[in-house]
Each structure stands twice: as C-alpha cells, then as structure tokens.
C-alpha cells in the first residue's frame, strides 16, 4: 500500500524549516587542500626524507606505504572524534571531556602550545635550506648565502617565520585560504615541472648538469657527482639498491617519515567550527585524500629521483651534507643542503629558470607555514574559556580581531627558543623531539577515543558512529587501539632506540629529556595553580566537564 504512493527510497528522511545555520556542506576539496598542506610533500617531506640514509637497510617505498596504511587508522580515529564532538579545541576538548580537565590540559597544551615553540625555528631552518640559500646560491648572491648560514642569519630567518605566521593570524583564515589556493595551484605546477625535468633527463644528463652547476655556482672542480658519493660513503652511508627489502628496517624508517606524514589530522582542531563536521565522511575523506594523494606524489617523486639522480647519490649527498654539518666532515662540492628541487633545476642550464623554480616551489612553504600558530591559538582560547589560563589569553583586538593574547603566548617563547636554536647549536637535539611530543599528544587523544564509548557513553550513544561496531566492539575502539600501537611503537623508538638512530634516545640526549620533562611540569603547575586560584574565586575547575543529570 505504502510504496504505491511513495517508494521508501524516495521518502524524505526529515522536513527542515528555515532556521539559522542550515548551510550546505563545505567542499571536501577545500578541506583536502588543508590536509594536503599539513603533510607537505616538499616543505616537510623532502626535508624529513633527507635523514633516511641513517637507516639504509629500510626500503623507503615500503615504509611509506605501511606508514600510510597505519596513519589511515589515525585519520579514522580523528574523523570519528570529530563526528562525536565537533567542537573547537580538537585534542584539548576531546582529552578534557574524556580523560578529565587536568590530564586534558597537560597533555594537549604541551603538544599544541609548548612544542610548537620548537617548530618556528624548525620552519626557519627549512625556509633557509629550501628558499633563501638555494635562491642566493643560484643568483650568485654569495654574501646573502653566507649571511643566512651564520648564527645571526639563522635567527633572522626565525624572525621572518614568526613575522609571517603573525601576519597570517592577523589577516585571518579567509584571506590566507585564498593565498593557500594560489600557492597550491602554482606549487603543483612547479612540482609538475620538477617531475617533468626528472622524467625526461637521463642519469648521465643529471651528472653532467650537477658537475656543471657545482663548478659554476659553488666553485667545485672535477667530478662533483662522484665526489659527493664518495664523501657520503666516507660519512658512513652504506649503499643498498633502491629495491633492497628487509622487513625490520622498514619499520625503523617510519619515525623519520612521521616528520611529515603524521599530520593529515592537523586541521582537526579547527573542524569544530564547521557545521558539516558531524558528518563523518567529510573530515574523513578530506584527511584521507590529503594523506594518500601526498603518498602517491612522494612515490612518483622518489621513483623519478632514483631514475635520474640515482638512489646512492640521493642518500650520499644527504650523508655528506649532514656529516659536514654535525660532525665537521669534509664539505661536499655543492655546499648546501641537497635540495632535490634545486638539483632538478640544474637540468636546465639557465640560472634565472633555476631561481624561478626555487621561488615557485617556495610557495609550498608559504602556503603552509602560515598556519603554524593557528591551531595553537584555538587551544589557548579553549583553555582560557575554561578559566585554566587567564582570560586575557583569549582577548582579540577590536579593529582587526587580532588574538594578541594568544599570539604573545606563542611568539615570546618562540623567540627565546629561536635564539637558542641559532646561537646554541649543542641544544639542537631538543628540536628533534618536536615530532615525538606531538605524537604523544595524538596518543593521548587516541586513548580518549578508545575509552570514549564507556567513559562518555552519553556522547557516544548520541553520535552518528554509535552503530559502527565489529563483533560488538565499537569501531572507534578498534581503530584507536591500532593507532595507539602504531604511535607507541614510534614513541618507543624515538625514546629508546639503542643506536640513537633518530638523535632522540633519552640516554643520549639528556638535555631534551630535561626540557620536555620541564614542559610537562610547567603544564601541571599551571593547572594546579589555576585550580587553587579559581577555587578561591568560587570556581571549581573540575566541574567544567561534569555532565548534568538528565532525569
């Protein structure tokens, strides 16, 4: 009877009335762009992969693919959390509501606030080696290049990064999103050019081009290509064929890859501002494609690099450079970080073209680095609204709506750490831990996801993912356990690798241990002080997340 008038599939699921906030969903592509930038193939990826020569037995391609599969579980975990609690604050909100206000504050603030101080100088270093230095060398501006390799130059680069991210926060995301889109498309064109150059050139072409530019730009003599390989081997790099495979070392490469591939969920702290975020598909596909399109491009770039530059050369160049930088080994003929984009540009015998290519590929940096403090300001706001931080931390200016309180809290410590980075090179091991601490923050969020169905049954049961179960076990718990195992493995390797493979083993880098223990202690102290100060004001911080009984 019923279906003669209206088939089940054709029936409206609900009737909506005209009401505020009923908007059409955001474009998955727009959100994909943000996630794609987060796992930035050029800015973070090329830099992160320049360290994998330390584990030459690990097959890089296999490691990238396995990393992608495991990070997909992280993506699912975060997409599910977004759909259960799509609120501003991301990690902070989820951890606070599930694990409790105190643990939530300490775990997320150390990652999203204190650790991001370290990323300003890390970004500055990347800006130097991927932009200022190759550009200066290519244009023959030796003095400029020399300046940016000096301690003052490194510090100036940090100041430029801090000024840039401050301007972006001031401009607001709407303006920056437009800039990002331009950077995205122009950057993609640049990448296509790089891939095209590598595709159509032979290895002999590259050797000739490299030797020519090493002489022209850096004054090197003889076969610079072979000299670079020899220096890399002398530095300890033990060459393997690109296809060499051994299972164990594949996993040991993964902590290097985390430097760029672990962040497809970076924008999760912002999803709370999106009304469509309750639909799990949007955040999931945005992050999923951001991750996997990048992986596809990495595979392409690697294969082309191996074909044209040579796998042994690629690793040896990195080994020679870092051996010179860290251990005072002989300087390589091309005395700058082996930037694959710069090397690809060498294939065209025209310095203006080479400079233009570096400029265009620099948009991968400028299209992403501006968001450095964006998530941090959100977390600081959330903590201020919870009265854990002083209310001025959430102040914004009337005219341009600049969140000056949060910016001060980010920039002042970043300035101090930038100075440490620039003028105290022996303290740089601390900066290697920047990835690990964020991974620890993600782990805390993952634990929150695992226990969510029991700890906040009310929220879970009301969410769209409540029906997702496998053998009666909530899907969020299952994917959370897999994600947690992945993160724990990497944290273990970062902390206890007996060979100090990542430069972060606790027993070999006591400065880092002291620094990070201090950040957790500071976070605990802030919370405890806030707890008692607020209690004297009649405010009980512990009740912020207590659920009011329904009946």
């Amino acid at each position: 009877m019923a279906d003669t008038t209206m088939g089940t599939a054709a029936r409206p699921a609900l009737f909506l009335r005209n009401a505020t906030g009923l908007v059409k969903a955001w474009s998955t592509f727009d959100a994909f762009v943000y996630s794609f930038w987060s796992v930035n193939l050029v800015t973070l990826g090329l830099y992160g992969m320049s360290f994998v020569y330390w584990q030459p037995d690990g097959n890089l391609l296999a490691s990238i693919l396995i990393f992608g599969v495991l990070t997909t579980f992280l993506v699912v975990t975060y997409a599910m959390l977004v759909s259960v609690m799509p609120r501003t604050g991301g990690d902070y909100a989820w951890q606070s509501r599930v694990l409790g206000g105190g643990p939530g504050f300490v775990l997320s603030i150390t990652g999203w606030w204190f650790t991001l101080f370290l990323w300003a100088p890390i970004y500055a270093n990347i800006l130097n080696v991927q932009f200022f230095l190759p550009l200066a060398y290519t244009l023959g501006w030796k003095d400029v290049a020399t300046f940016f390799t000096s301690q003052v130059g490194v510090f100036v680069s940090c100041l430029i990064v801090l000024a840039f991210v401050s301007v972006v926060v001031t401009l607001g995301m709407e303006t920056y999103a437009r800039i990002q889109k331009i950077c995205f498309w122009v950057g993609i064109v640049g990448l296509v050019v790089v891939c095209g150059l590598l595709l159509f050139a032979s290895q002999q072409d590259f050797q000739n081009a490299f030797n020519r530019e090493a002489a022209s730009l850096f004054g090197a003599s003889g076969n610079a290509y072979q000299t670079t390989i020899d220096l890399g081997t002398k530095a300890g790099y033990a060459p393997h064929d690109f296809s060499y495979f051994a299972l164990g070392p594949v996993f040991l490469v993964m902590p290097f890859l985390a430097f760029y591939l672990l962040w497809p969920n970076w924008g999760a702290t912002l999803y709370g501002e999106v009304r469509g975020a309750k639909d799990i598909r949007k955040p999931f596909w945005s992050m999923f494609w951001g991750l996997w399109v990048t992986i596809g491009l990495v595979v392409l770039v690697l294969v082309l690099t191996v074909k044209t530059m040579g796998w042994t050369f690629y690793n040896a160049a990195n080994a020679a450079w870092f051996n010179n930088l860290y251990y005072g080994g002989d300087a390589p003929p091309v005395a700058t970080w082996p930037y694959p984009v710069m090397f690809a540009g060498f294939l065209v015998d025209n310095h203006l073209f080479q400079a233009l290519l570096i400029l265009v590929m620099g948009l991968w940096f400028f299209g992403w680095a501006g968001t450095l403090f964006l998530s941090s300001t959100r977390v600081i706001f959330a903590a201020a609204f919870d009265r854990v931080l002083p209310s001025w931390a959430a102040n914004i200016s009337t005219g341009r709506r600049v969140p000056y309180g949060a910016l001060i809290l980010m920039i002042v410590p970043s300035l101090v750490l930038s100075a440490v980075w620039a003028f105290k090179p022996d303290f740089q091991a601390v900066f290697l831990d920047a990835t690990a601490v964020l991974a620890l923050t993600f782990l805390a969020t993952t634990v929150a996801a695992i226990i969510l169905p029991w700890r906040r049954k009310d929220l879970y049961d009301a969410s769209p993912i409540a029906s997702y179960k496998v053998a009666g076990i909530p899907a969020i718990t299952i994917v959370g356990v897999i994600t947690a195992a992945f993160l724990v493995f990497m944290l273990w390797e970062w902390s206890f690798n007996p060979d100090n493979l990542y430069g972060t083993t606790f027993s070999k880098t006591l400065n880092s241990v002291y620094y990070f223990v201090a950040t957790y202690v500071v976070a605990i102290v802030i919370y405890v002080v806030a707890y008692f100060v607020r209690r004297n004001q009649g405010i009980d911080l512990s009740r912020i997340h207590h659920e009011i009984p329904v009946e």
Partner: protein
Amino acid sequence: MPRVFFATDLHGSEVCWKKFLNAAKFYGADILICGGDMTGKAIVPVVSENGHFSVALGGERQTVPAEQVAEIENNIRRKGYYPLRMSVERLHELDQDAGKRAACFQEVMLEGVERWMGMAAEKLHGTGVRVFVCPGNDDELEVDEVVRRSDFVELGEGRLVDIDGFSMISTGWSNPTPWKTHREDSEEELAQRIDAMASQVPDQSRAIFNLHCPPYKSGLDEAPAIDADLKLLHGGRALRPVGSTAVRAAIEKHQPLLSLHGHIHESKGAIKIGKTLSINPGSAYEEGMLMGAVIQLDAKKGIKSYQLVNG
C-alpha cells in the same frame, strides 16, 4: 546574591532542556536563563505501515516494531528534532505542500514548548528558582504566547525584570541573517528595540543585557563564511564576524554589568567590552551536551565569578 545559569540555542533538544532544569540543583543556581532558539529545526517522520514504523535517522532507514518506537522517538528528540508519527499518505501530503508543512511545524513546535513549560513547573515549582525564557530569532512569534501562559516560567522578551536588585533586559531579535528567520530587524530597528529597554534600566552597573545576537567583531560572533548559495567556503575554516553592530553599540554606550548572548553556536567565549563582561556559552545541542555559563552575582563586585561549563 543570585547565582545565574545561562544556556542558549537548545533548538528543540529535550535532553538539553532537562539538563537546563537540573542545572539549578547541579550548579546551585537560583536563576535559570534560556537565551533563545528553543525550537527545533527539523521534523523526523516516523511512518506507520503494516504494523511497523520506519524512520530514517543519521542517513540510515530502519523499521521497528511498535514497542520500540518510543525509544527511537527519544533518540530523535535528543538531537533536537521532532519525531512525528504519520501515515505514508500524510508524509506525502507534507512533502508536497509547503503550507501544510509550515502549519505542522508550528503545531509540533508549540506543543513542544508547552510540554517544556510543564516540565519546568513540575521540576522547579516551589524551589525558589526563577526560570526566564527569551525566544530567539529561530522561534516563531507564537512561542511567546505559550511561554506567557506558563504560570511558572517567565518570558523575558521586551521586558525589564528585576533579579534580586539586578535589572535584566532581553530580546531574541537578531540582525538580518541569510535565512530570513522569524525575528530579524535591521540594525537601526534593533538599536531602537534595545534602547527602548536599556533606557529604563536604573543602574547600568547592575544591569544584565540578555540579547540573543552577539556584538559585532567581539569574537563571540564568528561564524563560518558562506556564499550566496549558503555553501561553506574554504572548507569551513574561514570565519567571519556576523554579530550585530546595534548590540555592540548598546553595550559600549550603556556598559551594563553583564551581557549574555548566543546565536552563533561555534563562537563560545567570554570577553570584556569596556566594563561589560560579554558571554556566549556556545551550543552543542545535537550532542545532547548543555553548554552554559554559571555567573555568581555579588552586591559589591557585581560579578564575583563566572565559568563556562559543558554539562
């Protein structure tokens, strides 16, 4: 001195309304203020056929026996939607006829508000707790009359009320929105509406402005940017201030002790505009979570303390 609990934008979530009423005991509040947009945005048809009921919720259609319908309906109410049992013929009729759909909406919304008023009286009558409701721009004008009929809940709209020596003025009207909702004024009209009440306040240092729309460029009014087709721009990450300049001007001119706002669910926050503490507790009604603000008023200090909570 009174302790105020303020929540807003419940949008038909019965779980949130129950929590709102229980907030008095939970937070020790004497005054409960519901800031507007009480009514839901959607009706979910629960279609009766062949002794069973079918319903589509969260993108999944399910058929349940009669004895499970109440549970399904509770789940729907929890999200802020109105479950409505109907035949296939009625479903078809509502689908085809916008006028009948609007009438149906009004019927279920007013019935819902009436039920909520009854629940408030049943729960809090005789406790000494006062409950104020001020319908928002998403609430049809007829809602006021339903609240007015309540012998327990007090209607705030357009009135100056005394709360233990503090004066509160309220309006749920907003500046124009892209949705052309039920209570929208031009900024000039909204300014007149607010000023008409504000001018009656005897002492602004003990005044509460309960204005649904947040002040412009206050950080309490940042909504995702949309295009003319109501599509979110830039992955929803781009935010724009959409608050009212009239509300901001009123706060800057009169400098009340406290201003309470809602309207923009994502823009939770508490800021100072001159001497005024302005609060938007945000809303997460779809999760069944009651976001609110607990404010301890004080005869000397004005505001002794405040806290945003996620109940």
